[in-house]
């Protein structure tokens, strides 16, 4: 069992790395369908990446080496995260007690370097985006950690693969309300961290209202390819954490698990596409209220699970 797991882990990891642009494509197609358009071809994000990789890069005279290091460190941090998150099967490539903290802080490392690269240009627009990014990133942190704490208490484990595994399936029966709240809070965290619609609009090109897109205005060529891919990868990873938390699988489904997870990921992308098509972006000063709401949800979940005295 463990031998096969080791052998299969490598192709699984490769598949996980190949997946993210497809999710972007599903979101784009969904939004196009809602808008009454055909939308780009399914493989367009891959073509875009290829095109960007082949292009040269343009650099501002103001920038330093940090501007070039930003996308690299960000993507490297996310790739490292990808080794720790279970995406298709129940098991991640690497797993140890406490990997949850490392995941959260790797995301923060990526954020810091993206923000620094944005500020390196000296553009006030990118400064604005960076300020919003750190603000909302900070505010989503408590919700994320509370969610992790609730799942950890429910499954009595501190290892992400176990926390999102069959034990969680059993825990769902015992503490349904708490875990429902957690899923709600995680969805908000996901939308915030990946800069999706109620928080940020990835499609707009009005500099004053954007967060993520405005931070990467000056990047071009391979650097921009890294950034685009990193954004899609982040969506995939956080999305799978959400999916594993919301729809844990018992052991008996392990054989078809990866296939189900693929379908679920597509479903999540569809859901995000629907949310993006149906709702409007919040006013920027209302976003903290949304994140406070997520924190409150996860806080209530914590109180629930602690008063329930599960174990």
């Amino acid at each position, binding site marked *: 069992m463990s031998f096969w797991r080791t052998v299969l882990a490598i192709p699984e990891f490769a598949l996980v790395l190949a997946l993210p642009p497809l999710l972007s494509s599903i979101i784009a197609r969904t939004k196009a369908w809602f808008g009454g358009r055909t939308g780009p071809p399914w493989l367009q994000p891959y073509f875009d990446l290829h095109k960007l990789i082949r292009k040269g890069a343009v650099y501002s005279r103001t920038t330093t080496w940090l501007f070039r290091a930003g996308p690299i460190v960000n993507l490297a941090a996310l790739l490292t995260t990808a080794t720790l998150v279970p995406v298709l099967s129940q098991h991640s490539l690497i797993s140890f007690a406490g990997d949850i903290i490392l995941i959260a802080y790797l995301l923060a490392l990526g954020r810091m370097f993206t923000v620094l690269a944005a500020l390196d240009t000296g553009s006030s627009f990118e400064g604005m985006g960076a300020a919003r990014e750190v603000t909302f990133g900070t505010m989503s942190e408590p919700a994320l950690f509370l969610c992790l704490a609730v799942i950890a208490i429910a499954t009595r484990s501190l290892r992400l693969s176990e926390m999102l595994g069959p034990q969680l399936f059993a825990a769902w029966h015992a503490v349904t*309300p708490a875990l429902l709240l957690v899923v709600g809070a995680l969805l908000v965290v996901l939308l915030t961290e990946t800069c999706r619609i109620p928080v940020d609009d990835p499609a707009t090109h009005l500099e004053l209202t954007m967060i993520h897109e405005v931070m990467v205005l000056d990047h071009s060529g391979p650097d921009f390819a890294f950034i685009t891919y990193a954004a899609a990868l982040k969506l995939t990873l956080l999305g799978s954490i959400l999916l594993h938390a919301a729809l844990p699988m018992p052991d008996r489904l392990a054989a078809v698990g990866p296939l189900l997870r693929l379908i679920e990921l597509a479903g999540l992308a569809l859901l995000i596409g629907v949310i993006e098509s149906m709702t409007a972006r919040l006013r920027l000063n209302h976003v903290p209220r949304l994140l406070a709401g997520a924190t*409150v949800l996860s*806080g*209530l979940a914590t109180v*629930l699970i602690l*008063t329930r005295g599960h174990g």
Partner: protein
Amino acid sequence: MQAILDAVFMLIILLDLAMLAVSRLASCIRIFAMQSLLLALLPLAADTLHVGIPGRHALLIAGVTIALKAIFIPRVLERIIRTGEIHREVEPFIGFTASVMIGALLAAGSFAVARRLPLAEAPLSDLLLPASLSTVLIGLLVLISRVKAITQVIGFLVVENGIFIFGLMLLPQTPLLVELGILLDVFVGVFIMAIVVHHIRREFDHMDTHLLAVEANSAGAASGGEG
């Protein structure tokens, strides 16, 4: 069944918090109506859980609650907003985010306290007592932290909802008459408040209790100046 009941109680707490978060009066009223609807279903659920089928007593309570608190009172309040030409926002003393946070703390506190309260018999659900306490407390918070007279009416109604949940524990022991009497009291209370609110508007062209105070103050200052 137990899981659904728990979820309903959780939803009630969440609606309390949502009440603190929304900035439109109309949404406030809608949330109250939703909460009342959920409450009305609780006696039925309690009977189903205990006996198997809802009894007459429960059916009657549920019916009256729905008619009164989920339909009639919200209608009245909405009408006041429409005809009263009130500025349709809530106008809090405490900011929305801050009041949600305080509300969450109150909810957490009621979870902590509810564990320590000695009860004669186990309630319908572990969440009943916390839900009741936090609904009462958050209702009081709405009462305190909002400027307008109409939001104070809503706050009062939310407090009453909390007491209703508490009463669910006593449902088997309470005679029907008492409960209907309470509902009648609420109805009369809202009725009187509606009239008062209406009169405040007639007299001062406004429905801001805050402004009443300003009025009194300036009157006092004026008389003081003359004296």
